[in-house]
């Protein structure tokens, strides 16, 4: 547990705990989240400044709200997982939320960025490298490892009149096909005369090729940022649904099944695997079989469940992040399958009533 969190977690008085929580958010979370949102070129350099500010403001509020709720959960139940590095945790949460938000709100820009990254790292004329100060930098291969100048005056001039620049650069056609992008990058780097930050490149290419996103309505960010959750409360209420859940679990690919079952917890961090034998949904032997474990070996493991991700990673020969991703894939699939069953069941109950 990070020492920064200790006073908040251990506070017994609710008022005092709230004070510590406000302090944690104001002193640590707010500056880090602001810095990460501020470093996003797209949120900053978007031509439509009003939209950009609104994006940043929405995102900021959502990240802080999510952090608050996460901290409250940890305080109410330490078993939900400790945070070893609170500042790193805030940064990762903000970065991931920012990335996801931009990808969802600007899907066309996300695809263009992927294409440019691919071209820059697969065409020997160009290069993509990382600079400690500026992040991802790109340019001609012979510029590799130089710092990014990102000549804003040149970029602004192109942005103001892309058509004139296309004529001046003598580009026969402009577009996002591989050959067209390759010629476009060549002309752009020549015009700029120095490496560019990748985000600057994406923005200027989007302007030239008119690869613009125009979301019709603001995303419901809370919905978008919320982790996919399977409403197990509802599932557990119904024996037959639990049987269906088990059936779906058995149909998961084996690695996903293992990543899920060995760390099968409810919203409060309670082990759910033990629920299966007690509700007669599946015997321990059947669970062992589903996990491809010898029965005796699984019995030894039973009292240690749920296992932490590092241990599961060791069993699978995977990294901890891969275990997390496998489990998320499994939950996504179960959520999709089971929500259909739940909806059907609700309709059925409604019509009966």
């Amino acid at each position, binding site marked *: 547990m990070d020492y920064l969190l200790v006073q908040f977690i251990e506070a017994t008085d609710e008022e005092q705990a709230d004070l510590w929580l406000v302090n944690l958010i104001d002193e640590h979370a707010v500056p880090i989240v602001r810095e990460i949102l501020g470093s996003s070129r797209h949120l900053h350099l978007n031509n439509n400044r009003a939209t950009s500010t609104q994006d940043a403001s929405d995102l900021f509020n959502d990240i802080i709200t999510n952090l608050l709720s*996460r901290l409250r959960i940890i305080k109410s139940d330490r078993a939900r997982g400790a945070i070893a590095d609170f500042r790193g945790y805030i940064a990762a*949460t903000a970065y991931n939320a920012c990335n996801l938000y931009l990808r969802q709100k600007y899907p066309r820009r996300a695809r263009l960025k992927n294409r440019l990254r691919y071209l820059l790292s697969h065409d020997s004329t160009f290069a993509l490298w990382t600079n400690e100060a500026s*992040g991802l930098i790109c340019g001609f291969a012979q510029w590799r490892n130089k710092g990014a100048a990102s000549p804003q005056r040149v970029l602004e001039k192109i942005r103001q009149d*892309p058509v004139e620049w296309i004529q001046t650069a003598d580009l026969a056609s402009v577009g996002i096909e591989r050959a067209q992008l390759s010629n476009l990058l060549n002309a752009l780097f*020549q015009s700029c005369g120095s490496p560019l930050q990748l985000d600057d490149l994406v923005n200027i290419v989007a302007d030239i090729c008119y690869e613009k996103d125009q979301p019709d309505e603001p995303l419901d960010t809370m919905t978008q940022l919320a982790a996919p959750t399977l409403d197990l409360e509802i599932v557990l209420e119904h024996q037959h649904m639990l049987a269906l859940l088990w059936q779906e679990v058995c149909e998961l690919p084996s690695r996903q099944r293992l990543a899920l079952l060995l760390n099968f917890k409810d919203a409060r961090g309670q082990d759910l695997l033990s629920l299966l034998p007690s509700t007669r949904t599946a015997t321990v032997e059947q669970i062992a079989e589903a996990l491809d474990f010898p029965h005796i070996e699984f019995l030894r493991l039973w009292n240690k469940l749920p296992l932490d991700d590092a241990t599961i990673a060791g069993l699978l020969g995977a990294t901890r992040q891969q275990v997390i991703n496998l489990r998320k894939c499994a939950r996504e699939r179960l959520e999709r399958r089971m929500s259909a069953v739940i909806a059907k069941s609700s309709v059925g109950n409604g019509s009966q009533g």
Partner: protein
Amino acid sequence: MSKHLSQFESDEGPFHLDYEQHLEPYVDGNASDIDREIVDSHIALCSRCADELKDLLAFKQQPVAALTGDTRVTSSRWKQWLPQSPSLSSPALAMAIVIGVLILAMGVLLWTTYRASRRIERAATGSPESDKHVEKEQPASSTEHTSPENSSNLPTLPREEPLITLNDAGGHILVNQRGQLEGLHELPPDLKKDVERALATRRLPGSPALTAWSTGAGILRSELADQNTFAPLEPMDVVIETDRPKFRWQALEGARHYIVTIYDAKLREVGSSGPIVETEWTIPNSLERGVTYSWQISALKDDKTIVSPKPPLREARFRILDQRAVVTLAKLKESAGSSHLVMGVFYWKHGLIEESEREFQALAKANPNSTVVAELLASIRRR
């Protein structure tokens, strides 16, 4: 910082594919078995990530640039090459070659100028050869270049040749060598820029008004098969001008009746047809402009209600053109309504794709030899 953070392990928030960790290795065939399984499982459920992966796979397959690496970085390659060539080690020899190249360039320039003036003279005198030398886009008519001053006996001034000439708006629309549009006045500046950009890039990518909408990737195959039998037909993924749209759907054999239900963006029901036996219905009340709606069709068959589309299939969505665009469109119809090019670009920009395609078809008919128009029309159809 971003690179460091992207590698930070996290089990918070929803899972989506990461470029470095998943997309690029998958596309290049370098992903581990575990990551490949993660990608395959995820794209079956997430249409956005499926779109990104599909796009990158398609991009990888596209041909690389026609220019080779050797010819691209012209100025810097010259600088590298000069000192390396042994024959150019002598400064005097190098200078002589540079002077020679300059003389040659001046000769070419003089010859080109002479040829251009001859061509303009021939055009002014109506020589039948004149069109043979024009390499840029030209209209079908051979008389369109004869301007009033050329038809008189006034001395001819050398005039800049337009880059593109199109038969449109009851006359001709020109794009000059700087890519600027001539022959259309009173266009909103934004729209003028959009038209110029379309002509310069020769493409109209997906309409910016529709980009936030799902493309339907990630739909399970078995469920797609169902969609072919009973499903909404229109409106689907479009912006429409009328605020009282007509709904059409594919019939379900043996259905006793159908019910159309319309929802707003927050999935609140805003209209229903009630039971009907036809396979189309026009809503009697106006829907709110600028709002995105979705709709479902349900059929009663053998005392069972069958609904389409339903999750995980994508919604049947449409948006009613917003009031501001309606006003602009009315003004535009008055000022530039006869220009298929302008109307086509306007419709495209606002997501009225069928209308845009119709305008470009008319433009193509008036300009059968224009490759620019053909490419624009093709790009609209590819959406």
